[in-house]
């Protein structure tokens, strides 16, 4: 049997519970051709049936948008259900290890982008940034910058067409097709100062482009003005 969910995280959790109780079941977003498809209603209350750590693991897996994430989530969920929460530590088990590594990738991308995000000023006290991360990390990024910055800001994920808006203590994530803003007058001057600084600080006796490439992968550079 294949349990079809609506693509939401609550939907995924609901489908996992259904699938875990019957043998040889699968979970997917779309109906499968050669299988019996049962569509699962997304239930907001399902979340309470998951222990916190397990819930967090599955959420990261969902946000990572990894290929075949439903299959990985189901494997993981079944293993934990059978062996207990302690089993989350058994990284010699391939289902556990694969989630472990997805989590690691997710958080290392987040840590990178906490540094790599570049804002520009669109108005006094309003900053804007564009990102296109591999994982759906915008809510984590938004929270990070709410702690760090006093300015209001918008972070636009151009890959997923969603944006994080911050105004004072409030924030919201919205679907949005396109976001474009003209930088403020000050912007060009600051950009120039930054680029100048960035080029000047490299010590020529130590130049090492290969190392630099490992540390700042090319895919992130298009939104970083110094490259």
């Amino acid at each position: 049997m294949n349990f079809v969910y609506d693509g939401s995280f609550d939907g995924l959790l609901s489908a996992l519970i259904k699938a875990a109780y019957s043998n040889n079941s699968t979970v997917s977003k779309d109906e499968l051709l050669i299988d019996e498809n049962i569509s699962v209603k997304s239930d907001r209350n399902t979340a309470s049936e998951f222990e916190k750590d397990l819930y967090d693991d599955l959420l990261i897996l969902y946000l990572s948008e990894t290929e075949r994430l439903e299959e990985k989530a189901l494997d993981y969920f079944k293993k934990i259900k059978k062996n207990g929460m302690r089993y989350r530590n058994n990284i010699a088990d391939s289902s556990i290890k694969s989630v472990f590594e997805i989590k690691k990738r997710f958080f290392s991308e987040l840590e990178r982008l906490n540094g790599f995000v570049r804002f520009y000023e669109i108005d006094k006290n309003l900053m804007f940034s564009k990102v296109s991360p591999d994982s759906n990390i915008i809510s984590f990024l938004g929270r990070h910058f709410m702690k760090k910055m006093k300015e209001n800001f918008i972070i636009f994920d151009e890959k997923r067409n969603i944006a994080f808006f911050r105004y004072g203590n409030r924030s919201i994530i919205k679907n949005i097709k396109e976001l474009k803003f003209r930088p403020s007058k000050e912007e060009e001057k600051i950009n120039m100062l930054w680029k100048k600084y960035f080029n000047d600080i490299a010590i020529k006796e130590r130049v090492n482009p290969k190392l630099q490439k490992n540390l700042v992968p090319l895919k992130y550079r298009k939104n970083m003005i110094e490259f």
Partner: protein
Amino acid sequence: MSPVPTIKINHMDIIEKLEILSNSAKYDASCASSKSYIGGKGLKSMSGVCHSWAGDGRCVSLLKILLTNMCEYDCKYCINRKSNNIKRAYFTEDEICYLTTEFYKRNYIEGLFLSSSVMKNPDYTMELMISAVKMLRNKYKFKGYIHLKIIPSADKKFIDEAIKYADRVSVNIELPDSNEFQDICPDKTRDGIIKPMLYARDKINERYEKKFYGGQSTQLIVGATPDSDYSILKLSDSLYKKINLKRVYYSAFINVNNDEKLPAISTPPLLREHRLYQADWLLRMYKFRFDEILDENENLNNAFDPKTQWALKNLDLFPFEINTASFEELIRTPGIGILGAKKIIRARRFSKLSIEDLKKLRISTKKLIYFVTFSGKYHGIKTDNPERIKELVMEYRQDGLFDTRLLDMTEKSANTGEL
């Protein structure tokens, strides 16, 4: 939201000043805002973020500048020494605040690293530096990270203020060797460096008791004086133990002045710097004693990392059994870092580990097979001859890690320290 003060900045001026005063500051290695707990003034746990990496592969996390490069002193190794004919400039406090806050709100940087040449005298310079960071904190409400250099021989009252406004302060020792010191730095005294460090230590301790946090670090130049790695590590060890430093930074000597009093080298000793960072991690994170790592006047080995060098000298302690060895034993095994040891301990709770399991955990087994058994099974070569094992590890090195990749890793492992 506090109103941001408006100031007039002359754009052409500031570009030129930034060029001069960042070029003068870039040789200072202590730039990484480390992952230590900083709270109090800056945002805790916000430190340690790298915002970019420069062309030389060094992490850019702070705006690293000098207040001025106008210097009264004539230290032989320093690009800013009095006798050098270079462009000189100074930043006003407004300019420092402007650059720091504008860069910070665009997320270019995590904070400010402010150092200076000695203009007029140490106290005069310190007063200007303090005034700039004070303005940054009070007028601009800046919450980011601040690392402030303390000028040797500065008055105590400036050290008090420095610790109040900065997350990290440092006095650079620069030269490990006290015999050569006066020859190379005719205007500084050894006392002028050590006394502020001791005073800052006591002040920081007092603040810890009141639940404020801060820290102190220093920099040593490697390769400008004839010191052995043993004496450098010994110095670092006593700095960690006696002055509670958070970090000692090692900076490969770059021959910028071609001074006859200093070694005429054409390339900086980067591999040596790398080995010292590795050994420093052994001191701080792996709980090695400095005299375990090296014997008197010994140097770190170019061919092996310091842990492998130690293990080869102590083969009688090995092999450890991977399924029963303690955490302390595991991290002393070549090829197993702190993360690796944690992974092994987590995984072996569920079943006995074989060599294949370690590969699954993504732990390289090439080097460690000579130092461990798996449920009693030894995968290395059975020999009582340490020279043979040395050769084997050496072979691994030659087709494995050495050369450019090792040099590539210089900065990375200075940051992560995994061995």
